[in-house]
């Protein structure tokens, strides 16, 4: 078979399998155009495609299953008789066995090692270690009894047999409170401490090795066993023990994962993981997949989660129902709010200290760990929480709550503490309301100063206000240490303002500080905690860290849904942001669900006719816009405008925003004239409210520029983009991401005019800004890669264009997922470059993939689907597959007609290339009707002098020339030369 035939087979086969089964044969017959051999070959391939294949449907190594050989009951191993199999693990099997040499009847657990290692070596190690292990006599450590080698040469060990269940199961089954769990856990730690003093490290602590018997006694299994089974690749054993995906080394420390030295600190780390699990019901990681890479990354590189956050986690590894926060709280006999409160602060800090990545930064000795746990239970300061004076003072007051009232000495002490600790003291003594009021006054006062710097309120004078803000942030860092609530609130506010200014690097520490402060507060202001979570979530959201943003939003929502009606606005805000996030991720259904939840909350509270309600409606409409549901989107925007006009009037920011959004929608819908007037109305309001140089105006100018571009007014588009850029530079500073957006747009329009040098310079500047602000894996950075790829294509540098677009596709797949709209856009751009490179197969498959993607998202009637068909038609034509080409081009035109309005240039292009194709095939009447249609449309919307109109006229002239209609030919030739 030659290359050519194969390419043909490929193209027909791939198209055929996209069709329903009953349509395939007819299609193949048509596509093969009488080539019987080809037809038979393809039909055979299609039938193979439908039938299973024993080898190819698996992997090279599958099914080479080696017999699991377990021992039958009654089997004798030296002095032991097997009674029953208890379990199998990676290293071998564990049996219940009985000592049968008559001395005394003792039931033991017998562990048979089947790992193919050198059994003599294992045994000799065992004999060395045994002396030490035999010394471990502790009521909570199962004793190691004996060891030997079977007649097959497999080493085995016997241990005290423990009839119990893993510690976390025991705790949950008995619904132990946090305090009871901690007491039990301290027993575990005591046993480990005993072993550490005897210089034995466990190395494999996990719930499965920590059993609790029916009488509530803790027993640690397998102490020291791991050591003499270990060879150069300890972790490999763990990972491959039960097949890679079945079991994960969730409890191993980073140094163990990396194969570095194992110390007592490694046991402390494992205990930290177990403690997190016992407290919050989840391990301290978020695992989005079961892959080893994800786990290694989580253990070695990602910061561990606090139990109070982990509580709300949904891990891939845990079943959703079991790990719901509700259930976790119920099993600890608490409400979610109470559980979160109890975990926040000391317990969080204790776990985090045990879970530090660097062994030397964990608890140095297990005694310290135990002390902290005991101190927590006794309400004494814990070392993990640091030793700030106020912290200790707070502990003191709480501990001596009763004494405060009775003892004069204590009162005296308290008097000296007041200056350090007003707020906390007030709480303790029930004067909270008064002090809280004071605090909120401070908050409001400072907030009002700082808010000036928010571009939404500063009327464009953000740059000078920035200095004020920076000063505030600096002072905040040094002052107010004695008033954590106020400090937390201010950090949140300033953080939010920095977010809005696009100064994310400055926002981060403040928002994190605010959340930490609020988390540490004993009598936590939960509403504030939730706000901090939302704000930090917003920060991550803006930076494209979607997973982190999502978990923060959800954590905030979990809190806010339990709060009273006065916090409804906060709640709705978070719901809106979560919806927005889902929208960004292309998860439209989920987005809609969250928005609707927000609407429902507001409706339940009675007053749907307010700004928040209109904002949410606006968001839903934006979502529908993105989904190309133009009609319902338009209805909602108009409804929003109606409400806003009633509630806040015509000349208001919100009203203007909704006009703007409606304008964008109408633009995409093809209603250019109304779109233009909506944008102008928005501009008019904004100019009146904000003056001529406010950054908000830049949005409107940008949108108008895009509209101009679609309408073929390239000059005015360029001018509008330059205007937007200039506004953003002066109002937001040179390094704001929005400056980069304007540069990007400008580069695009310059590229269209062939001004590549300036375009590339714009891109470069934009890239520097975005790289600095967001980093190189942010969606906005990827967008630049994508745009630059398209620019290079236009410039004719196809090699670099391909490189960039391949990168854009891969990055977007990673960031947004493989079936996201934006991934699809990049794919189409790449397909087009392949097309230019005449890489037909690659181009064709890229278009197929893109068509698929868009079809799944939006249905067939979408311009991108239409575009894919049209382009594939051109490819088929290039490859001389004319029948296929005709049917694809035809479908393309059909889909354009159902997805865009007749004034849309994309439809014209679809018609034009189909007409051109028909002309080449000498199908004159078909070509004429297509080209005539384009010509009329172009003439109507662009006029006769437009370049595209002229091109169509030339083609029509050629058509009539070819078909012998001299008169008409002349007519179009004249038209094509019409005045420039």
């Amino acid at each position, binding site marked *: *078979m030659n*290359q050519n035939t*194969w390419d043909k*087979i*490929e193209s027909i*086969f*791939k198209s055929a*399998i996209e069709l329903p089964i009953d349509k395939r044969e007819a299609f193949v017959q048509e596509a093969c155009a009488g080539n019987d051999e080809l037809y038979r070959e393809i039909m*055979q*391939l299609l039938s*193979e*495609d439908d*039938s299973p*294949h024993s*080898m*190819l449907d698996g*992997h*090279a*190594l*599958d*099914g*080479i*299953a*080696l*017999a*699991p*050989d377990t021992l039958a009951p009654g089997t004798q191993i030296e002095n032991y008789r097997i009674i029953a199999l208890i379990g199998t693990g990676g290293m*071998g*099997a564990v049996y219940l066995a009985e000592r049968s040499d008559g001395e005394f009847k003792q039931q033991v657990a017998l562990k048979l090692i*089947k*790992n*193919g290692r050198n059994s003599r070596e294992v045994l000799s190690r065992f004999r060395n270690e045994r002396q030490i292990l035999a010394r471990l006599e502790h009521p909570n450590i199962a004793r190691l009894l004996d060891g030997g080698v079977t007649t097959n040469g497999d080493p085995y060990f016997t241990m005290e047999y423990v009839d119990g269940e893993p510690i976390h199961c025991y705790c949950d089954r008995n619904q132990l409170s946090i305090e009871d769990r901690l007491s039990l856990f301290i027993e575990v730690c005591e046993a480990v401490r005993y072993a550490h003093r005897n210089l034995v490290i466990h190395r494999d602590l996990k719930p499965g090795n920590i059993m609790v018997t029916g009488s509530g006694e803790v027993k640690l299994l397998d102490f020291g066993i791991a050591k003499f089974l270990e060879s*150069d*690749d300890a*972790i*490999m054993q763990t*990972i*491959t023990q039960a*097949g*890679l*995906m079945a079991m994960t080394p969730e409890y191993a420390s980073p140094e163990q994962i990396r194969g570095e030295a194992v110390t007592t600190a490694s046991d402390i780390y494992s205990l930290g993981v177990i403690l997190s699990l016992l407290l919050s019901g989840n391990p301290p990681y978020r695992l989005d997949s079961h*892959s*080893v*890479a994800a786990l*290694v*990354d989580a253990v*070695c590189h990602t910061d561990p989660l606090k139990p109070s956050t982990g509580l709300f986690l949904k891990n891939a590894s845990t079943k959703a129902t079991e790990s719901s926060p509700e259930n976790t709280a119920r099993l600890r006999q608490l409400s979610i709010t109470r559980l979160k409160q109890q975990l926040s602060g000391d317990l969080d800090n204790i776990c985090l200290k045990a879970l530090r990545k660097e062994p030397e930064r964990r608890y140095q000795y297990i005694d310290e760990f135990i002390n902290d746990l005991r101190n927590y239970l006794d309400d004494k300061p814990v070392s993990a929480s640091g030793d700030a004076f106020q912290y200790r003072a707070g502990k003191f007051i709480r501990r001596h709550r009763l004494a405060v009232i009775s003892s004069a000495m204590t009162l005296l002490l308290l008097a000296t503490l007041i200056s350090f600790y007003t707020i906390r003291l007030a709480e303790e003594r029930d004067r909270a309301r008064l002090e809280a009021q004071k605090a909120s006054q401070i908050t409001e006062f400072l907030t009002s100063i700082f808010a000036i710097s928010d571009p939404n309120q500063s009327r464009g004078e953000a740059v000078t206000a920035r200095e004020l803000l920076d000063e505030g942030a600096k002072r905040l860092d040094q002052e107010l240490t004695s008033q954590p609530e106020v400090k937390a609130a201010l950090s949140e506010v300033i953080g939010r303002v920095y977010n809005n200014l696009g100064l994310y690097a400055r926002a981060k520490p403040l928002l994190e500080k605010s959340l930490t402060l609020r988390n540490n507060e004993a009598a936590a202001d939960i509403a504030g905690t939730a706000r901090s979570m939302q704000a930090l979530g917003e920060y991550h959201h803006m930076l494209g860290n979607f997973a982190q943003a999502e978990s923060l939003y959800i954590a905030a929502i979990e809190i806010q849904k339990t709060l009273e009606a006065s916090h409804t606005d906060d709640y709705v805000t978070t719901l809106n942001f979560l919806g927005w996030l889902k929208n960004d991720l292309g998860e439209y259904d989920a987005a809609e669900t969250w928005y609707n939840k927000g609407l429902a909350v507001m409706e339940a509270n009675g007053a749907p006719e307010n700004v928040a309600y209109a904002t949410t409606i606006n968001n839903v409409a934006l979502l529908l816009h993105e989904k190309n549901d133009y009609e319902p989107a338009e209805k909602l925007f108009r409804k929003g405008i109606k409400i806003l006009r009633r509630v806040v009037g015509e000349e208001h920011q919100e009203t203007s925003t909704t006009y703007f959004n409606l304008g964008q929608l109408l633009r995409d819908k093809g209603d250019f004239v109304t779109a233009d007037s909506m944008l102008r109305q928005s501009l008019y309001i904004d100019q009146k409210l904000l003056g001529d140089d406010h950054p908000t105006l830049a949005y409107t100018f940008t949108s108008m520029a895009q509209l101009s571009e679609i309408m073929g007014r390239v000059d005015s588009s360029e001018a509008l983009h330059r205007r937007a850029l200039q506004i953003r530079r002066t109002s937001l500073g040179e390094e704001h991401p929005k400056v980069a957006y304007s540069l990007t747009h400008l580069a695009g329009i310059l590229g269209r005019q062939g001004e590549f040098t300036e375009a590339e310079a714009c891109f470069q500047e934009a890239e520097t800004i975005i790289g600095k602000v967001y980093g190189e894996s942010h969606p906005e950075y990827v967008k630049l890669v994508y745009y630059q790829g398209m620019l290079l294509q236009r410039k004719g540098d196809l090699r670099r264009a391909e490189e960039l677009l*391949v990168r854009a*596709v*891969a990055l977007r*797949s990673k960031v947004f997922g*493989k079936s996201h709209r934006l991934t699809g856009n990049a*794919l189409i751009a790449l397909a087009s470059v392949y097309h230019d490179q005449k890489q037909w*197969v690659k181009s064709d*498959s*890229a278009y*197929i*993939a*893109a068509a*698929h993607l868009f079809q799944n998202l939006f249905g067939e009637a979408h311009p991108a689907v239409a575009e894919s068909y049209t382009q594939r038609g051109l490819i088929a034509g290039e490859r001389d597959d004319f029948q296929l080409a005709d049917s694809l081009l035809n479908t393309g035109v059909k889909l354009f007609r159902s997805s865009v309005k007749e004034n849309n240039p994309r439809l014209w292009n679809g018609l034009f290339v189909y007409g051109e194709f028909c002309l080449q095939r000498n199908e004159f009447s078909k070509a004429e009707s297509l080209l005539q249609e384009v010509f009329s449309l172009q003439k109507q919307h662009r006029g006769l002098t437009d370049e595209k109109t002229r091109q169509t006229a030339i083609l029509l002239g050629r058509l009539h020339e070819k078909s012998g209609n001299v008169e008409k030919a002349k007519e179009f030739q004249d038209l094509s030369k019409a005045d420039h």
Partner: protein
Amino acid sequence: MEWDGHQKEITRLLSEISDGNREVVNQLMPLIYDGLQQIAHRQLYGERPGHTLNTTALVHEAYLKLVNQKNVNWQNRAHFFAIASQAMRRILINYANQRNAQKRGGGAMVATFDEAAFGAEWRSERLLDLDEALTRLSSLNERQANVVEYRFFGGLTHEEIAETLGVSIPTVRLDWRLARAWLSKELRDTPE
């Protein structure tokens, strides 16, 4: 530890590969081949009874063992998997050849294999047929042959393959279906 030297070298080479240096691939291949072979050998010769062998697990194990994860990015990782798939193909083909030779020569079977391994016995010849068919496919379309190699011998997911080849997942899926159908036909044509 014997791996350390290897690990350093492999990790270093992987980070250089990003520049598309073919020379580097040639240097990496024997290193990855060696590492993979030791792991595969242990599995193939039944040193871990009681488990179903798993291609994906094996290649990932090799990755964890041979590469210092701190120093590689995802592109490097993709390259590693691609090379490992090719190494895996060679290892298994050698293995199958060896077993075939033993069979023809009437020599002793590998002693540690028990009945359960007969499936593998039957497979080893089919594996050789597949190898030949795959070589033919690569002369028709190299990318499609690569897809088969990565998936069947390397246990890579479509997503990983797409990442490695720099194409979309649907492309991989379509390539796979075509290649699978064709190989399936080819293997049917050769008598079993």
